């Protein structure tokens, strides 16, 4: 009977003794010896090869056999020979990956490990960034499992790896070494420049050095984070420097010519030139980040938020920030950015408007109207609505409880310095299906997994603390980020799909609300249980990014029920045409998001822009329903032929009438060209249901 062995690539091959003989002979020659037929027979007699023995196993046996026969030097040579081949194979794999990447249709498709990377074009710089990613994943896992073993024992560490490998849980951003995202206070920079974080810049002292220094500072900070960098004080500080230069009433004299050069620029022109410098610079691919641009977020505040956050703030000259001028500057920036986006595809900054709600409406009526006006003008940004100014979303995905609003010179500006250290996500669809199949109450199973996740996060936190103790995290030491205000985040994915599996209809109903509250309540319970004076946890419905696509693929391969190619990042099925716009706000309303302490964003996809009155009413809807974080997403059209950008969702370029058009839409919170998504994400985007404003018949008779 013929014996087949299994090669490394899984293929079967007819077993022949000659190949082994050959390899052993070579090993003898390598140490200057010669293997006789008798020696070879003695060595080979130790081997046990049966059908489907693997090559790896046979080689292990050869090593043992050589040593058993006393040929230690030869065994060593044989091991070296094996190691060299392993390295060759590894290099070959990298080479294959490289060639695949070079031939992929776009950068996201080529990226194997972290496809949502904010990279528009692939080139040698992005390739250089891709190559070490697999190494980072291994390194991160090793660091983490070593620490878990030390803190909780080997069993827990093994269970973690097993759950990770079986895709019950997903460790986000494993391809980077840095902590995740942060909303920073720029106060230490304002006082001391970048010296404390390893730079050499002195503090900004005028508008020009503020703008230039700000760009450098954001690049530096971003290189020490794996995710987003939010600068909620950006416009407030800029306002301060404009006031220093042109007077506190500058906004009343915006048309005044203040530039003595031939340009004869007005105050307004000087300011918009600053906007241009900062925004265009920060949208550039960054060398230090593998050609990714930085992920930059800013915030706008209504009068009440501003007061709550910055009432006690003082600039170095002892002055408090001025609302009247900041109000003007916020409006100016937003309008400028909206118009600038017609000239160029600008992803950053991701903007969040923070509004306080009261009695079912926006408390600051002027800002409610202004927000609606900007949406009606086609501007794309997030809105955060809260009943109390005690929480803030300063990041594209992060909601923070502000525990202390007060400004302190030692901690920086109250409330704005925060973030998420690390995100670990549970795949609820798999976890719940697995539990049901194995007759385990799914609540108990989830609780068990979530408990482990907390321990893993604590281990991560210890590693971070060690890095900080060795002076590796200057952002913390210098006060840009307050480690006490940083969260360890438990992410959820596959919630909707799990509910569907359980036969629950995905719509606003007591049954579905109960399921959501029950599942998320388990996580919140654990978050509270593990909270200490130094460690805080939150729970977030993570943006699907590529995780939703990966989970769907893995779960389908393993025989789980998978209703779509990308798991939802929403509480409703994104392609369901029966869920109307108001239902979506309700499904992201207080009943459903109650336990999502880390937030979730409703991306309300619409085919057409609404009027200002309609957006204004939807702000009321958000306030009434308690939907605290949302944006409206109307795909913008970019002409591939003439480059014209239009804020509407069009089939044809209105400028040159070309039908060769692409769309800009939000993925993971960032405006991007659809053709730059990975293929799976493109599929999801195509399926997304953009509520047609005119879905109901224009007339019954029409």
């Amino acid at each position, binding site marked *: 009977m013929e014996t087949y062995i299994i090669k490394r690539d899984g293929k079967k091959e007819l077993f022949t003794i000659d190949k082994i003989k050959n390899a052993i002979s070579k090993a003898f020659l390598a140490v200057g010896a010669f293997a006789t037929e008798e020696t070879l027979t003695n060595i080979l007699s130790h081997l046990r090869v049966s059908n489907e023995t693997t090559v790896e196993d046979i080689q292990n046996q050869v090593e043992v056999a050589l040593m058993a026969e006393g040929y230690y030097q030869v065994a060593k040579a044989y091991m070296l020979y094996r190691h060299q081949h392993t390295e060759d194979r590894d290099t070959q794999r990298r080479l294959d990956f490289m060639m695949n990447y070079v031939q992929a249709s776009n950068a996201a498709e080529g990226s194997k490990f972290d496809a949502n990377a904010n990279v528009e074009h692939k080139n040698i710089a992005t390739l250089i960034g891709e190559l070490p990613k697999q190494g980072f994943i291994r390194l991160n896992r090793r660091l983490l499992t070593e620490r878990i073993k030390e803190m909780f024992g080997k069993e827990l560490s093994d269970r973690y790896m097993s759950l990770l490998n079986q895709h019950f849980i997903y460790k986000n951003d494993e391809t980077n070494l840095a902590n995740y995202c942060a909303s920073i206070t720029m106060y230490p920079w304002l006082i001391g420049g970048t010296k404390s974080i390893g730079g050499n810049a002195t503090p900004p002292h005028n508008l020009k050095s503020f703008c230039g220094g700000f760009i450098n500072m954001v690049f530096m900070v971003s290189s020490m984070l794996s995710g987003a960098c939010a600068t909620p004080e950006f416009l407030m500080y800029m306002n301060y420097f404009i006031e220093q230069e042109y007077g506190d009433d500058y906004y009343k004299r915006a048309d005044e010519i203040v530039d003595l050069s031939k340009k004869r620029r007005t105050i307004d022109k000087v300011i918009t030139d600053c906007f241009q410098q900062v925004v265009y610079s920060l949208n550039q691919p960054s060398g230090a980040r593998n050609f990714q641009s930085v992920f930059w977020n800013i915030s706008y505040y209504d009068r009440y938020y501003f007061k709550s956050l910055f009432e006690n703030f003082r600039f170095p000259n002892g002055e408090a920030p001025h609302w009247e001028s900041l109000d003007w500057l916020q409006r100016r920036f937003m309008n400028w950015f909206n118009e600038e986006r017609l000239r160029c595809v600008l992803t950053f900054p991701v903007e969040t408007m923070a509004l306080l709600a009261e*009695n*079912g*409406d926006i408390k600051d009526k002027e800002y409610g109207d202004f927000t609606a006006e900007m949406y*009606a*003008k*086609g501007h794309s940004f997030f809105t955060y609505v809260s009943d109390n100014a005690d929480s803030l979303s300063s990041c594209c995905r992060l909601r923070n409880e502000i525990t202390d609003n007060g400004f302190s010179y030692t901690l920086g500006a109250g409330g704005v310095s925060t973030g998420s250290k690390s995100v670990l996500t549970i795949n609820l669809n798999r976890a719940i299906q697995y539990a049901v199949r194995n007759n385990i109450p799914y609540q108990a199973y989830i609780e068990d997994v979530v408990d482990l996740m907390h321990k893993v996060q604590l281990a991560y936190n210890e590693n971070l603390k060690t890095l900080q103790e060795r002076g590796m995290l200057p952002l913390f030491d210098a006060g840009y980020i307050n480690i006490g205000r940083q969260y360890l985040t438990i992410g959820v994915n596959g919630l909707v799909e799990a509910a569907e599996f359980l036969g629950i209809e995905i719509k606003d109903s007591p049954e579905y609300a109960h399921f959501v509250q029950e599942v998320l309540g388990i996580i919140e319970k654990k978050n509270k249980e593990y909270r200490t004076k130094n460690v805080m946890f939150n729970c977030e419905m993570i943006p699907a990014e590529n995780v939703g696509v990966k989970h769907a693929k893995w779960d389908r391969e393993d025989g789980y029920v998978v209703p779509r190619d990308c798991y939802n990042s929403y509480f409703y099925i994104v392609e369901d045409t029966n869920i*109307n*716009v*108001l*239902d979506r*706000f309700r499904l992201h309303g207080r009943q459903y998001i109650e336990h999502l302490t880390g937030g979730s964003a409703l991306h309300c996809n*619409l085919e*057409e*822009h*609404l*009027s200002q*009155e*309609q957006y204004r*009413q*939807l702000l*009321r*809807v958000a306030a*009434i*329903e308690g939907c605290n974080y949302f944006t409206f997403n109307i795909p913008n059209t970019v002409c591939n032929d003439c480059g014209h950008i239009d*804020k*509407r969702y069009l089939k044809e370029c209105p400028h040159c009438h070309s039908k060769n058009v692409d769309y800009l839409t939000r993925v993971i919170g960032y405006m991007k060209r659809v053709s730059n998504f990975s293929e799976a994400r493109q599929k999801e985007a195509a399926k997304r249901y953009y509520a047609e*404003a*005119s*879905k*109901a*018949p*224009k*007339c*019954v*008779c*029409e």
Partner: protein
Amino acid sequence: MKVASFDIVFQEIPGEVTLALNLSNCPCHCPGCHSPHLAEDIGEPLTAELLDGLIARYKGLITCVAFMGGDADPAEVARLAEWIKNHQSPMTNDQSVLRTAWYSGRQQAPECLTAQRSVSETVCQCNGLSGAAGLPFDYVKLGPYIESLGGLKSPTTNQRLYKRVGESWVDITSSFWKKEL
């Protein structure tokens, strides 16, 4: 009268967040109709209770209720619109009362509007209603769908949307043609 489906719409009634009730049994049979199924006898009977339930579900969220069709029984449409006007409690926000709209396909608007008769009279006359001044709508759309002329979004449309402003009606059809943002 039966309602085949409902939806929340934005383009049909400018400036409003509208609960649109798609009424079936449409007698118009316009060639090229986008919703021919609404000519059939489908859906649930539209009772005051059903209407009340829907409005309660979106209380404070919608600003307008639109009856899409119902040309087979205009008197019933008017009665239900009247009922809405009389039976709603004040909303919690500063939006005033819930507005009502009727998308009718019956009249040839241009003919009806000659001799400067008010829309409400026109609507009443063409549909055999009484009580012209008290017509319980804030918006009325008139005109059948004529494929060659297009719907309201087409500048060549024969259809007209009127908005009540005080005691008179204003033709706001042109607001559908605004293209740029």
